[in-house]
């Protein structure tokens, strides 16, 4: 009986690739969109941070998540610390669950990722509620569901550079 996804032997990750992926995630978050797309847009920075927290916990952890949270706060014009608090909590959950997360099948990955991102968004919403007394509405949480759906694609893309090149001598 197969319990997890196909186990692969991957090449080590280049730190440059991690930095590049996080920066592109940040850029995707800044992309101006309107209407329905904006409601459905997942938090790409959070997703990529989550991925690296699970797969490279020695390189990307709570500190990096906090730093990107601060960047997100400035880019969004939010209060300092809103996203930083949420991202660091998300990184902590990811570090705690990372061993089982990397073994899960796609369907279970969806529920785990969606739930973790929902917790993250709940922290943002709660800080907003306490600090500014504004509730943003339920559609805000749709982004996490999209993130869960996009997760397999994201992990495939982030794994690509670590795939070993096919051996020309092998038949």
């Amino acid at each position, binding site marked *: 009986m197969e319990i997890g996804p196909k186990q692969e032997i991957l090449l080590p990750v280049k730190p440059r690739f991690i930095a590049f992926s996080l*920066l592109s995630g*940040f*850029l*995707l*978050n*800044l*992309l*101006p969109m309107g209407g329905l797309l*904006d409601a459905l847009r997942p938090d790409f920075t959070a997703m990529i941070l989550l991925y690296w927290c699970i797969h490279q916990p*020695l390189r990307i*952890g*709570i*500190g990096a998540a*906090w730093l990107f*949270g*601060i*960047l997100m706060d*400035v*880019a*969004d*014009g*939010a*209060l*300092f*610390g*809103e996203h*930083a*608090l949420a991202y*660091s*909590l998300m*990184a*902590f959950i990811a*570090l*705690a669950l990372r061993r089982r997360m990397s073994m899960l099948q796609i369907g279970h990955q969806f529920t785990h990722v969606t739930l973790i991102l929902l917790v993250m968004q709940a922290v943002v919403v709660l*800080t*907003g509620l306490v*600090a*500014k007394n*504004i509730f*943003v*509405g339920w559609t*805000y949480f749709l982004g996490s569901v999209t993130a869960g759906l996009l997760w397999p694609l994201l992990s495939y893309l982030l794994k690509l550079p670590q795939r070993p090149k096919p051996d020309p001598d092998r038949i």
Partner: protein
Amino acid sequence: MEHELFSRGPSPAVRLTFFCLLSLLLLVSDAHYNYLKTLRAGIATAIYPLQRAAMIPGEVAGAIGRYTRTQDELVLENAALKSRTLQDSEKLLRYQALQQENIHLRQLFDAKSRVSPPSVMAEILYDERDPFSRKVVVDKGTQAHIAAGSAVIDNQGVIGQVLQVYPLFSEVSLITDKDHPTPVEILRNGLRAIVFGFGSSNLLDLRYMSQNTDIKVGDMLVTSGIDGTFPAGLPVATVLSVDKNPVYAFSRIICKPIAGVNRYRQVLILASTSPPPPPLPDKPEEKQAPKGNRK
């Protein structure tokens, strides 16, 4: 706690506590004090190139869309614009005559002539993604001599007010932002009031108007100019509905902004010219109590 062969610094729980406390400290100091303004401006300027880069796909798509428009559409639009210009020019002629008459009358009354403040044209770069507020970012900052507090308008009326200025861009808080106050007067009878943003919807809330106030659906609200931020007489909103429920002390009045608050890209930033109003007297109640200060 498991023993680790190699030291990896503090445990995740310790790190989480540290960063959570740091975030909370930042949250409180940002919400209540002004210490972090320079830090925010520095980070904002550093990520500005990224934000411009993120806009390139949209701009390219827009350029392609413009390029592929058919001539029919352009001819139709041209015709519509021409008829619009004709209508407007008629209004403009009347307006000029009225302005002359107004200047003359003001001279007669020896009143200060109202000068129109200098204005800077700016373009909206993007809406901020923060779901808690309605703000936009425009492409002019301290380098274009924009100051915080300046009024922002479009060709139809007031859009908002400059909230924070950075070297290359500035943040504009829209009039529909939650609890954003705009001092207005009703054009029909000159009644002064304050209109607030709802935050969630693209509508405005006219608060603190008693049940017997003379206000009707369709009334136009213009800026009163008594705050020193917005010049007087700019259109703000029209009254959409008036709900006079005797259960409440005030009537519930919903207004719709006249300006394209979230439609157009080009806006005009007006420098505020009038000096700030004098500070309120220490004890206004004692002087005004017998008269009954009705506004």
